[in-house]
């Protein structure tokens, strides 16, 4: 499958933990940005049939829906977008309203990804989020009313004073609207306000053991709720897995448009510059052609992130022969990995330590 990612780098307020390419003080650039984005799409040299589009950010809902409409129009004009394509937009609860949702829906956007993060107002405030619990449900109700049938809620794990009970309650109430949950562990990135909060002792995050305990409890709770874990951090009702994300793990082609957006076609990855000045000048942050070894590493790394696993024989083609790898045999024996129809998959209990497992396999 081929996908398109569009990056909208504007936010009303940057979250305390955010280290992504997004800005809360550049709204005067919006018009110029969308002009550039449109031009970038129009001048693309690829002719792909597109199975999914993801409009992410930043906060796509922070700009007028007409900009989004223009971009979708440009994509459809340039590419052959499948009529069943999954088209997702990311939104924050506080910048959603019925009117906006209607406009999204009418332009063919069929999946909504809501940055809920938490239903505890205290936690939301500490993270620098602008919404509260009431706004979350207001937005979700409106989305349902407008006709969205595929809704994701992003939640964060590892917040201050977070308990399993809180999360269980949150999932239960969100499940009335959501078909998909993304559960990311809060990461303290260098250079973020969160980092200095942690270092200064102004926020006390739970330790790894506690977080992992909650994570494992949640995994089984999701299962009981009929939400299947198909990736480390992703849970969905049957048939609602995010096609766009799966395409990343399956190493399908994708084109990224916009500031800092990443693309992958064939065996080459590249990314646009992640500041306005360089992006407007058409600069790339990097272009890299993967060698066999890197491809093999990616196959393992991405395959073990999700329930797709990877094909042993395909891996051999890129020079990584696991059959004679002691680590691999050890991992199989310990039921950390298992074989299913020629594919190597990870025991879901070990999603949490997949990096360790991956490292052992790509030790060549």
């Amino acid at each position, binding site marked *: 499958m081929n996908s398109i*990612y569009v990056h909208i780098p504007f936010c009303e307020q940057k979250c305390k933990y955010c280290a992504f390419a997004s800005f809360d003080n550049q709204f005067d650039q919006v018009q110029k940005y969308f002009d550039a984005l449109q031009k970038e799409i129009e001048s693309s040299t690829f002719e792909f049939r597109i199975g999914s589009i993801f409009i992410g950010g930043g906060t796509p809902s922070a700009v007028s829906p007409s900009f989004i409409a223009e971009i979708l129009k440009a994509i459809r004009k340039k590419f052959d977008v499948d009529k069943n394509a999954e088209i997702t937009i990311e939104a924050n609860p506080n910048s959603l309203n019925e009117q906006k949702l209607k406009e999204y829906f009418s332009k063919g956007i069929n999946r909504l990804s809501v940055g809920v993060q938490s239903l505890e107002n205290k936690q939301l405030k500490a993270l620098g989020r602008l919404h509260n619990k009431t706004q979350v449900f207001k937005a979700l109700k409106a989305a349902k009313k407008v006709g969205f049938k595929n809704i994701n809620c992003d939640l964060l794990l590892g917040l201050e004073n977070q308990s399993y009970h809180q999360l269980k309650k949150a999932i239960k109430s969100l499940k009335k609207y959501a078909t998909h949950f*993304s559960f990311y562990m809060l990461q303290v990135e260098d250079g973020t306000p969160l980092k200095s909060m942690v270092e200064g002792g102004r926020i006390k995050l739970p330790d*790894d053991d506690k977080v992992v305990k909650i994570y494992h409890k949640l995994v089984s709770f999701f299962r009981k709720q009929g939400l299947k874990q198909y990736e480390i951090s992703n849970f969905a009702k049957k048939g609602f897995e995010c096609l766009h994300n799966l395409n990343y793990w399956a190493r399908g082609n994708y084109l990224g448009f916009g500031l800092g*957006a990443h*693309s992958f076609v064939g065996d080459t990855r590249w990314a646009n510059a992640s500041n306005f000045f360089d992006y407007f000048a058409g600069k790339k942050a*990097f272009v890299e052609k993967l060698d066999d070894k890197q491809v093999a590493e990616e196959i393992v790394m991405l395959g073990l992130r999700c329930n797709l696993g990877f094909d042993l024989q395909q891996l051999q083609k890129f020079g990584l022969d696991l059959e004679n790898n002691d680590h691999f045999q050890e991992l199989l024996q310990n039921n950390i990995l298992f074989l299913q129809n020629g594919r190597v998959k990870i025991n879901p209990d070990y999603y949490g330590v997949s990096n360790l497992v991956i*490292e052992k396999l790509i030790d060549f």
Partner: protein
Amino acid sequence: MKRQEKIRNFCIIAHIDHGKSTLADRLIEKTGTLAKRDMQNQLLDSMELEREKGITIKLTPTRMLYNFQGEEYELNLIDTPGHVDFTYEVSRSLAACEGAILIVDASQGVEAQTLANAYLAIDNNLEILPVLNKIDLPSARPEEVKKEIEDVVGIPAMHAPCISAKDGTNIDQVLEMIVKEFPCPKGDENGKLKCLIFDSYYDNFKGAICLIRVFDGQVKAGDKIKMMQTGKTYDVTEVGIFVPNPKQTEVLRAGDVGYVACSIKTIQDVAVGDTITNALDPSDQALPGYKKVQPVVFCGIFPVDGAKYQELKDALEKLKLNDASLQFEPEVSQALGFGFRCGFLGLLHLEIISERIEREFNLDIITTAPGVTLKVKKTNGEVLNLSNPSQLPNPVEIEYIEEPVVKASIFAPPQYVGAIMELCQDKRGIYKGLVYLDTQRVRVDYTLPLSEIIYDFFDSLKSRTKGYASFDYEVAGYEKSDLVKVDILLNGEKCDALSIIVHKDKAYSRGRNLTEKLKKIIPRQLFEVPIQAAIGNKIIARETVSAMRKDVLAKCYGGDITRKRKLLEKQKEGKKRMRKIGSVEIPSEAFMSILKLDDEDK
């Protein structure tokens, strides 16, 4: 005779940081031996590392010409290393001189090495000229320090020049006194050749070069010479002097300091302290004082990346070219793979060598805990000399173990005596005496096991005495001791490179300490890892590294796979620095950590 009257051979001795190298620089500058623009600060300390550590390791002699009262004098300065590790080398340099300048910091006064070096000079019958340095400092107290020199060292000091080597104050006075006070050489130019080798270095083109002082006779290119200790003979290809770079001359005669090159293949063939004589007309008696240098501190050195064994070998061989006291032989460790067991003159020497390997050869290395040579008497009567803890026989096969001890003198203000004694007691020291040098300073004497001072004795001493104490020691034989080997087991498997030998009374606390430390260093793995300390089969301490629970469930945002792959590659790279003991992966730092144990005892 006349010629020798215009020669002065001397050295400068001092406690560390009292300004030895700075004075040497000033003398060279003042005599115009090198133009000022050619001077690099502290010229004589030529190695980068030496300059950084502020210590002189390698001796570099320099000939200076000095005009005094219309006559030109030849002043040969033989620089000496100031560290206890190199005492023998210092003593040979001193033996090449008639006089010694004893520099004393005018505010700090007499320190441990001041005294140790002064005694060495006295032992070698040198004329000692005390000089007070750092007179420019507001805390300088020259009169008191002069008295201290007289009382403590026992040499007259009232007329000692007060200088500032840094500012160049009163340097002329020093030069004058060198000429006036130091005796000239009184060798027999026509006698049988006798030269003292006081140092050597390796030259890529000329082979091993002997730095010599000619006592009797003369030597020139073409002569056939003989080393009296090793018995080997060579043809002299070149002789010369240092100004301070080597300069070829026709002949070296009695009283001269210079070098002899004779295509000697390795520096190991040149024994410092040996006597060179003429092979065809040999002297019947060698110069006194020769000793074979024996390493006292040993450790294993392994490449972090096991594949770099050959590179490590090359590095050690290259270093050995210029360092006859460095010893090494191949060692195989179950944990660390192929490496070398290396012998050093002391901890500083060890530190310098390992830093030079990392810096000059760009190799990452693991050094295991430094240890000493133990004499192990087995029940079957056999006596083993052991420098590797992992080779210690089973306790039941051991009748007794002897370990090397040192005589240590510590100088400090009286208020720290309690702290010093506590430390020495803690290090299994035996009190030998206490002497008040004046109201401000005492000397505390102890006999201590060498193994106790090679860890961090000096650091603890400094921190307990706020830096006021100074310390010197000499190796003083072997004594019986109740030593045991503490092994470390990871996941039930013994890790040979982590074994240590300690006194029985300390085994439990060290074992506990070690397991606690390792727990902090060993990263969590997919399974639980027990860490045990054991004496023989008896477990004396245990810690557990619980299993790894999560790495990062981070968002792989917007298809940024590259970042994730790079993170993974970085982790993988970090893994190369890990060692595998059975199924447990441990970082190289773990091996180093046991060196630092003592800090956290406190």
